[in-house]
């Protein structure tokens, strides 16, 4: 049979989807199920010393004097150091980026020098032979404080009565204005104008594993190995290298198991930088693990916003314009290297995102305060943009007397309108709002729930249904950070290696945080090469061995890392077929690989086990033609380029019942229809969505970092700061529409943040729908029983 007669076959998943789309259990979950994972605090090192930080009890205070005399005498103490001593080994940083025009922030040190700017900022460090000895000694450090007035309220910060960093001139870190023009005209001709001010409570990620770092400096090599609970090993390699003065190639960052991250572990933390510097200074391994109290004081917080939003529409229910004024407070420093300007920037980019109005105006201020820093936490800006958009959309529907689902149906961007440029300037490749809306309404039996709601209202049962449509940034291109000068990789690479036994080893720069990265990479690699999944091993989280990459953030793992694995897998299949063709003396195009065998492409007859390809290529290349060299290790990279971001869309619904006597919200049900493109593993995607939804519900109902007027965190422990428990969460029903992105072969978009983005808005709308018959309304998250009772005028 001649080559020309063979059918055209594209290799890999285009003809054989293999494991893609299958709910395969994650191979790497087994060790975690037996408690045999390797979190940073599980590692054991000889001569390990422990860093314990002395933290400011004040929101703003000058350090008059530090007295280490007693601490240095304490049992087990190796060293007690202040900010100046550590600064000799670790240079300060400034959290600004070039594409956020005008953003400003002062230099920040690993340990504060002269002044503490939030309660919890480290001002000294004790290094001891054990953590408990270090804590004993830290209590002996004497600090002579001069308390300074604290700027705690963001409106007052903006007003600028007191300036936290006088050298910056004012308290404004960053501001942005956006205007399509024509907004005032749209409002002037609107039949209906609605306006509302929403407040979002500052909250945090609460990773069950605290931030953890173990830095091991080798003085002979001037090299540093850092075991780090991080999402971005290569970013941290670059940062340790530049700020500690160690050549990039001599810094190795290893992220083994990571006990939850959600965006919390993708930032530079002063205490972690200090720990790395201490290892260099003391020439021994040093570990720091944030305990729960430290986590609340120093893990990045997020989402403290006050947003005024207006919407204009016609009496037929056509949205004409959105007008937005956002104020957000970020603590005393913009966090390095991603900056604390991105969250507010995203609110401006995304507000009104699912709808087809053309007029949009936004104003946004990011201000400094003397509270803990804020930065990017799961679904950055989205929960705010979605909640205020969907809240004001519901208000407009209510004013028009129109069903909220019908109002959305009329205004969601039609599914045939793509590619589409949104008035904020962002571009959508292909979304499916109308399909997801209809699928959601069917999934939840919307009409039946509405009928039931009406019946129960007659019996004074307060039930509510809330919808929240959304768009989500995923698969970011260099437009997110790289263009602003951040040394954060938007590309990722994958190396695939065919081992002598026919097994496949995958190395990738995207990291595993429990979301299932390694599992889906195994699925993709097995499918692309043509092996069974038990033949695949995946290695991530080690700058010493994986290709360079960005790691895990902005829902990029599957879409970017997965594409790199797919491309490398196809290349490895082709190279393995070259070997097989040489062995079998057949034309490569007559052969394929499936089920760990080289097979005849047409007859599917087994021709050669892949293990034979491996054996011959590695151990008997002498039997192959003299001019042939087997290449069974291949690397491919992928960067999204056509669009700045690969947007996804989805819609959620919440069903609640409110007890008007206690103000308690009972969650009766939650539904989520998401279009994340190609779904690689439905089981993993669904539980990612659900986990995201539960974090979003936490924001809506429970979670807030409450500060006193003096800047003291009042609930910084897990007993007082509430996170969702199993008993109060509903079952969460997920469904999908699949619109693959055409930017990649795999077609996957991101999904890790969608649940968190949409849930707060859906829950808020459900609560307000339930309260509507009583003329009550809530707009400040979290919606605690106290706030609901206040809205009901049951408590003052």
């Amino acid at each position, binding site marked *: 049979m001649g080559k020309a007669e063979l059918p055209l076959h594209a290799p890999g998943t285009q003809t054989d989807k293999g494991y893609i789309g299958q709910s395969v259990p*994650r191979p790497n979950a087994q060790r975690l199920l037996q408690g045999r*994972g390797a979190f940073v605090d599980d590692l054991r090192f000889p001569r390990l010393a422990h860093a314990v930080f002395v933290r400011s009890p004040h929101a703003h205070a000058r350090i008059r004097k530090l007295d280490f005399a007693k601490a240095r005498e304490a049992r087990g103490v190796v060293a007690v150091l202040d900010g100046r001593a550590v600064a000799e080994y670790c240079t300060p940083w400034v959290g600004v980026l070039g594409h956020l025009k005008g953003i400003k922030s002062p230099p920040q040190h690993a340990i504060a020098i002269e002044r503490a700017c939030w309660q919890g900022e480290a001002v000294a460090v004790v290094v001891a032979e054990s953590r408990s000895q270090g804590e004993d000694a830290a209590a002996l450090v004497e600090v002579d404080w001069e308390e300074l007035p604290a700027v705690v309220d963001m409106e007052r910060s903006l007003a600028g009565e007191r300036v936290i960093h006088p050298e910056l001139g004012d308290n404004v870190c960053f501001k942005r204005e956006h205007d399509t023009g024509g907004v005032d005209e749209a409002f002037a001709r609107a039949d209906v104008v609605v306006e509302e001010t929403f407040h979002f409570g500052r909250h945090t*990620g609460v990773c069950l594993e605290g931030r953890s770092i173990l830095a091991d400096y080798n003085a002979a090599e001037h090299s540093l190995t850092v075991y780090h609970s991080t999402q971005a090993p290569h970013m941290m390699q670059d940062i340790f290298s530049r700020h500690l003065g160690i050549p990039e190639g001599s810094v190795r960052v290893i992220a083994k*198991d990571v006990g939850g991250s959600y965006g919390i572990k993708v930032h530079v933390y002063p205490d972690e930088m200090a720990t790395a510097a201490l290892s260099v200074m003391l020439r021994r391994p040093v570990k720091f693990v944030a305990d729960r109290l430290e986590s609340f004081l120093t893990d990045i917080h997020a989402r403290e916003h006050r947003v005024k939003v207006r919407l204009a529409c016609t009496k037929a229910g056509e949205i004409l314009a959105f007008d937005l004024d956002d104020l957000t407070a970020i603590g005393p420093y913009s966090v390095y290297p991603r900056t604390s300007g991105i969250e507010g920037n995203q609110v401006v980019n995304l507000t009104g995102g699912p709808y087809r109005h053309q007029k949009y105006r936004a104003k946004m201020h990011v201000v400094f305060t003397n509270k803990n820093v804020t930065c990017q936490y799961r679904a950055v800006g989205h929960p705010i943009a979605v909640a205020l958009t969907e809240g004001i959309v519901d208000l407009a529907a209510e004013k028009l007397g129109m069903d909220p689902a019908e109002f959305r149906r009329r205004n969601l961007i039609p599914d045939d309108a793509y590619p589409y440029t949104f008035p904020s300037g962002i571009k959508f490749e292909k979304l499916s709002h109308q399909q997801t809306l209809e699928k959601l309404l069917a999934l939840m039996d919307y009409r039946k729930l509405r009928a039931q709601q009406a019946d129960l209202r007659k019996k004074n049962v307060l039930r509510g249904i809330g919808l929240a449509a959304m768009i989500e940034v995923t698969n970011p291109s260099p437009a997110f950070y790289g263009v602003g000068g951040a040394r954060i990789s938007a590309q990722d690479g994958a190396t695939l290696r065919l081992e002598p036994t026919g097994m496949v080893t995958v190395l990738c720069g995207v990291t595993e945080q429990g979301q299932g990265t390694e599992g889906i990479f195994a699925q993709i690699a097995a499918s692309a090469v043509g092996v069974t999944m038990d033949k695949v091993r995946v290695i991530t989280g080690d700058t010493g061995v994986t290709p360079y990459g960005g790691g895990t953030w902005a829902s990029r793992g599957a879409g970017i890392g997965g594409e790199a694995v797919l491309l490398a897998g196809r290349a490895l299949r082709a190279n393995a077929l070259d070997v097989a063709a040489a062995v079998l003396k057949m034309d490569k195009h007559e052969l394929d690989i499936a089920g760990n065998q080289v097979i005849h492409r047409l007859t599917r007859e087994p021709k050669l086990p892949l293990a034979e390809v491996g054996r011959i290529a590695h151990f008997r290349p002498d039997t192959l033609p003299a001019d042939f060299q087997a290449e069974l290790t291949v690397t491919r990279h992928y960067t999204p380029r056509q669009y700045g971001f690969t947007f996804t869309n989805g819609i959620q619904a919440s069903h609640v019942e409110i007890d008007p006597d206690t103000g308690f919200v009972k969650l009766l049900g939650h539904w989520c229809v998401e279009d994340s493109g190609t779904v690689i593993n439905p089981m993993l995607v669904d*539980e990612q969505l659900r986990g*995201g939804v539960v974090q979003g519900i936490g924001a809506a109902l429970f979670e807030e970092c409450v500060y006193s007027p003096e800047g003291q965190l009042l609930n910084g*422990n897990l007993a007082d700061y509430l996170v969702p428990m199993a008993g109060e969460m509903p079952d969460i029903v997920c469904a999908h529409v699949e619109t693959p992105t055409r930017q990649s072969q795999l077609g996957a978009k991101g999904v890790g943040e969608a649940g968190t983005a949409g849930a707060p808005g859906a829950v808020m709308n459900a609560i307000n729908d339930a309260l509507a018959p009583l003329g009550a309304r809530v707009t400040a998250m979290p919606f605690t029983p106290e706030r609901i009772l206040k809205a009901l005028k049951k408590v003052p």
Partner: protein
Amino acid sequence: MEHDFDITLTVNGVRVQRRVEARQHLVDFLREDLGLTGAHAGCEHGVCGACTVRVDGEIVRGCLMLAVQANGRRVDTIEGLSDSGELAALQKAFHERNALQCGFCTPGMLLAAQELVRAGKKRSREEIRAHISGNYCRCTGYHAIVDAIEQVLNGQG
């Protein structure tokens, strides 16, 4: 030191003798002194359940019990209960249903769930949810965990 005590206990079936500080918590003793790192310190104030271990057959918070209080008692951890096979059905169901993500809460969650399994009764999803509400999971939405436990308890899910 005057605040140190000699203790003898049985950990995962093996007799262990150590001298411990009076203030040392059981979870720190297991992790630091015995190298059994499967129980995790999540909050160290008894809320999250990541440090759950079993003492004389009852689950306890390893961060609320002192090592010295375990003197003369039998302690079982995730490592021992995995090796004995007692948790195998739950571990299989958790794996099949992806009832874990980062895995930090998982050992504690499994020990809490095994209490229900040992009680040997069928339970509703609400009862399962109530029972595991002392164990926080920040990654999953709890839904798959409830599915997995339900599968083992009721042979369904």
